[in-house]
């Protein structure tokens, strides 16, 4: 095939010198040939879906699964968004506000917490010499894991097995807490304690489990980045600080942290953006229904739920809202980091 094409091109070339210019132009554009596979794939699987999502979100009552021959939607407008935001989709399942709230809670607690912990651990790592590599490896391990698999492992820490009248095991966490005289908590079971604010559920015990998992799984990447950032800090600053009688905590908070602030702010941005897309771990810990009746639902979980229900319009509207949320946070983060980052 290729030979033929080539021969044809050669023939054209020799017969029509006037087309040489065109041929030269084509030759100069041969870069397109290299990017063609990527461009075609992206056109189908990236660009088209983006456009389609924007269009589909405005098709009211859009259901890709609908009577054949009909267009599958009733009109154009903002109804999908309104109904998603109001939680009035008529199909039951997760409520968007609940999912949004959950996602915010997980993200805004776990990301700063794990960044802080990662900073402390990285600083600790730079202070030791013996076994540094070994510790580094152990801290990196959680990065490789499968969120669903490890979610299941975490679930076992918190699960109470048995009936209220005959508990077989309270689970590792409750056993641990009982050492401090804390009464067992039904962390993830059906009797898990929760507060209710209006239509909003606040299953705080489950939040704690989710946040512990998020912190744990967020650490490796952050430690890796912060540790290498710390090693790139000019040692002289530490010497100077020593001469200036700075205590260890002063060095950490007034010198080290500001010096690696670009990395910290990078980690916060990516952490927040990643946190907004949390899903698999929640399924791993709390099951495919994300808790009881989606009370642990996340924004991505919300979208998938409607994909599976065939409520296409709601799924699109949900994904656009997720996109908007992520954009807002990226924007805020950029502005804030410009003000506080020192280079």
């Amino acid at each position, binding site marked *: 095939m290729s030979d033929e094409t080539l021969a044809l091109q050669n023939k054209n070339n020799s017969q029509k010198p006037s087309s040489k210019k065109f041929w030269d132009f084509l030759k100069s554009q041969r870069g397109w040939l290299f*990017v063609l596979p990527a461009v075609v794939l992206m056109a189908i699987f990236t660009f088209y*879906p983006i456009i389609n999502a924007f269009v589909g979100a405005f098709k009211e009552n859009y259901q890709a699964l609908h009577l054949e021959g009909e267009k599958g939607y009733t009109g154009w407008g903002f109804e999908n968004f309104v109904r998603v935001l109001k939680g009035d989709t008529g199909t039951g399942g997760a409520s968007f506000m609940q999912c949004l709230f959950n996602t915010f809670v997980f993200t805004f607690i776990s990301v700063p917490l794990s960044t802080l912990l990662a900073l402390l651990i990285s600083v600790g790592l730079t202070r030791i010499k013996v076994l540094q590599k070994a510790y580094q490896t152990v801290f990196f391990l959680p990065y490789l894991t499968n969120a669903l698999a490890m979610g299941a492992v975490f679930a076992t820490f918190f699960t109470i097995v048995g009936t209220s009248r005959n508990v077989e095991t309270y689970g590792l966490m409750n056993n641990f807490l009982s050492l401090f005289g804390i009464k067992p908590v039904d962390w993830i079971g059906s009797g898990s304690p929760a507060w209710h604010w209006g239509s909003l559920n606040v299953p705080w015990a489950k939040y704690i489990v989710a946040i512990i998992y998020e912190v744990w799984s967020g650490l490796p990447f952050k430690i*890796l980045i912060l540790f*290498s950032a710390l090693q790139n800090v000019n040692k002289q600053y530490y010497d100077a600080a020593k001469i200036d009688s700075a205590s260890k905590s002063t060095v950490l908070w007034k010198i080290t942290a500001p010096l690696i602030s670009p990395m910290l702010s*990078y980690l916060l941005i990516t952490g927040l953006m990643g946190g907004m897309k949390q899903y698999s771990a929640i399924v791993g810990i709390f099951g495919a229904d994300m808790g009881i009746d989606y009370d642990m639902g996340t924004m991505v979980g919300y979208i998938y739920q409607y994909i599976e229900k065939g409520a296409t319009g709601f799924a699109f509207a949900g994904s656009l809202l997720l996109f908007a949320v992520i954009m807002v946070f990226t924007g805020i983060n950029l502005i804030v980091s410009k003000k506080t980052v020192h280079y």
Partner: protein
Amino acid sequence: MKDLENKELLNQEEVTEVVEVEEAKALAAIDLNKEKARDKRAKIVGAILSYTFLTICAFFAFLPFYWMVISSLKPEYEYRRSVPTFFPHEFYFKNYAAVLSQTDTGSSGSFLQIIVNTLVVGLVSTSIGLVVIVITSYALARMEFKGKNLLFTLMLATMMIPGEMFTLTNYLTVSKWGWNDTFTVLILPFLVSIYYIYLLRNNFKQIPNSLYQAAKVDGLSDAGYLVKVMVPLTAPTLISVTLLKFIATWNSYIWPRLVNTQSWQLITNWVTRGFPDRGAKLYNGLYGTTMALTTLRMAAVCMVSLPLFILFIAFRKYIMHGVSKSGTKG
């Protein structure tokens, strides 16, 4: 308390050493000895603190893995002891046998079938994906053509958009094309990873232009230059990309679950079938009950995690390199 003490001593020291140097000499001599002792102590205490803190953190980082492994080796009744045992009293390898022979899903995906699926999809998508990534980043880094910058900007812009926005349409697209229950559907949509293209393009750009000119003088074609010069030079990144792409396939869950039936799904889907809500009740051969058996679940989880650890031990440097690179260049 301690802080206060330190503060006082510090001030005292100031006073003795700066202001009243002469008079305080005798006193200072004693103080100095104390100081030295305290410095030494502080150093040791500091080291102990660092190690203690790190060890505690490492313990908690590692605990889930440990728990996963020992739980998978316990018989269920031992797992259910009200006071957990931190080491199995009895090694119970039957859990693994039970999981491996799990036949409740039968023709819809034995363990072997699923492993084959995962390997095929992983290897094919990684290798083709790598070719696409390399040629695309090469063109973006080294070649001139109309609209290049626009294309690159567009690509970068899509990185901001959450993948969930693509999923639904892609799902509709592949359903429409009748690609459900094929490997194609697991491979094709993920061949292009804009992030890796971006990474590799930057890598290519860092290679000095003089090398390109030298290669031209030596009569190397563009493609030859790519294969013989650029690829070897960027090998560490390429290896990292390969590994991370493979790991991504291994861990993929949502998409295979959405588009394919069980016998066409991948390893993570298979494992999760044994998880809480409905799947776990399928395991009943071993204990004759319908209980969601934690030990079996843990055995399944161990099996799906193990290859990742082997990969990590073998390619630790490249994986960490790749991951940290993705950190600094994002």
